[in-house]
């Protein structure tokens, strides 16, 4: 599903450049549940953004669903994101003037699905995250955990192949963290590939594979107990 070979990425800082990813090799197959761990600044988000086509890499090869990602224009990238990827962000990134339902329906708008159909599907997904009753509330009327569940519903609504989550529980307390992780596990159980960034060991332990990053290189890559238990 995701295949990365000798990936490099630097950020220009003034005249110098900061070499963040220094040759990453990573292969994630369809249906995996992978977490990336590492200290702050180790390049986790950078990697996820490249995988999510939100940013571009400098060197190396990246294949998404077998397709080599290279010199991609923004239009093509947007279409691929809409088709294959779902995002969950630490800061939720809901549109503040849209209701929970409208937020969830938005990716379907860009897919070209008509309004009636969109809202029906979106409501269905809100129901799956147990927020049907909150459909017509604005984001600022929801708690952090509720917001993140709306964001997850939004990530799922297009039935993506991969869900990318950058510290989805980073802004949540422990009970809501558990409910969000349960949701991600459910998604994975239904066959979707899930790729999460976290720096919490308890969170990582609930995934099936942990990749550890340090100073821009992978220092370990192993299956968890949860994976072995299956």
């Amino acid at each position: 599903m995701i295949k990365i070979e000798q990936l490099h990425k630097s950020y220009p800082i003034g005249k110098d450049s900061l070499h963040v990813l220094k040759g990453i090799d990573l292969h994630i197959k369809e249906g995996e549940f992978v977490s990336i761990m590492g200290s702050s600044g180790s390049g986790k988000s950078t990697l996820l953004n490249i995988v999510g086509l939100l940013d571009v890499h400098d060197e190396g090869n990246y294949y998404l669903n077998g397709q080599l990602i290279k010199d991609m224009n923004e239009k093509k990238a947007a279409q691929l994101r809409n088709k294959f990827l779902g995002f969950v962000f630490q800061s939720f990134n809901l549109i503040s003037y849209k209701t929970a339902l409208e937020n969830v329906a938005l990716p379907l708008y860009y897919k070209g699905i008509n309004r009636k159909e969109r809202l029906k599907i979106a409501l269905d997904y809100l129901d799956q995250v147990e927020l049907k009753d909150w459909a017509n509330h604005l984001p600022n009327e929801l708690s952090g955990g509720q917001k993140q569940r709306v964001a997850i519903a939004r990530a799922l609504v297009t039935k993506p192949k991969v869900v990318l989550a950058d510290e989805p529980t980073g802004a949540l307390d422990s009970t809501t963290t558990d409910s969000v992780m349960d949701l991600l596990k459910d998604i994975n159980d239904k066959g979707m590939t899930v790729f999460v960034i976290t720096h919490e060991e308890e969170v990582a332990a609930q995934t099936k594979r942990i990749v550890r990053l340090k100073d821009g290189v992978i220092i370990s890559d192993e299956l968890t107990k949860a994976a072995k238990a299956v």
Partner: protein
Amino acid sequence: MFDLDRWREIFQSINKNRLRSVMSGFTVAFAILLFTLLFGIVSGLSNSFKGAFADDAQNSMRVRVWKTSKPFKGLQTGRRIQLRNDDYNYVADEYANKIQYQSARIYKNFTIKYKNEASTYNVRAVNPDHQFLEKTIIDEGRFLNERDLREKSKSIVIGRLVKEDLFGERPALGKRVNVNGSSYLVIGIFSDEGGDNEERMAYIPVTTAQMMYGNNDYISQIVLGYNPNLSLDRAIAFGNQMERDLRKKLNIHPDDQSALSVRNMAEANKGVGQFMGILYAIVILIGSGTLVAGIIGISNIMIFVIKERTKEFGIRKALGAVPSSIVGMVVQESVLITTIAGYLGLSLGTYILTLIGDSLEEDYFIKDPSVSPGIVIGATIVLILSGLIAGYVPAKRAANIKPIEALRAD
């Protein structure tokens, strides 16, 4: 182009961010309001100028005579000049192809009497063409014709107010009135836009007047309408030429304004035309300046708005929005706001102009200020264009920001 979902997105964005929308609309509304008021006021000035001359035909000319103010060929200063039929015919023959209408005029002041009602009125003895030169409007009956002149008939055309004075509500047409002791047949009743004085007056044939009152061939003035195909400059040249020729014919010093002069509307028209031209040029200059300021204003606000929305655009992109959909959305929103705001400004401006109406006519010489449909259409096009420009430039820039940078924005 019509995409209901797109419009729904735009209305939601405008509606949920009212302050922002009102702010960007305000500059445009204000600019258009100013423009409308300026333009309306100048058109009001223009109307006043036109109205000032509406009384007579636009192409009228008058030959007037008085006393000489300069000695010439041994003739004394202070000699009284008299126009005669011969001069009238000379003008008619000499300039036939430059003249549309021609009439003599003799001024009289007579008592007109009907039954027990009597009053004194200005009576003008004229030719049939006079009707067109003075823009006399015939309400009943007819004006004088060539036959009246040939037969020196005692026919009279009376003004609306003369009829009111003498006849009240009773019919006047076909009745006989006593003019300075002789009986005249009322053949017509007229009105005139020149005001009450012009309607408290009567017309009789010039030939009748010459026979009855002095039995001579004197006339007081020659009134002309120059050929409307002449350009203003050619018409002015014609007036000057006629002035020279008549002075020569009547043995008047070539520069003696007092003895004989031609008053030519072409000169007045040219002056007014130039003045209005300058005024309109100033308005267009100020007006376009205001509009440009409005466009710059809305562009600036759009830049601010788009900065504020960068994160939203980032989210939309992450969810699959292609850059052109972001640009399209912003431009459409901007065009919508400018158009609506512009129309508000335009309507408010037009409304204020109607309120002003003719109330400034006395003091400020502004009559019936208004904006023409052409201006409204022009302004609409400018509005849509300015909305396009104001939205497009910053939207294009925003759409080109990498999604990750857009998401990081706050």
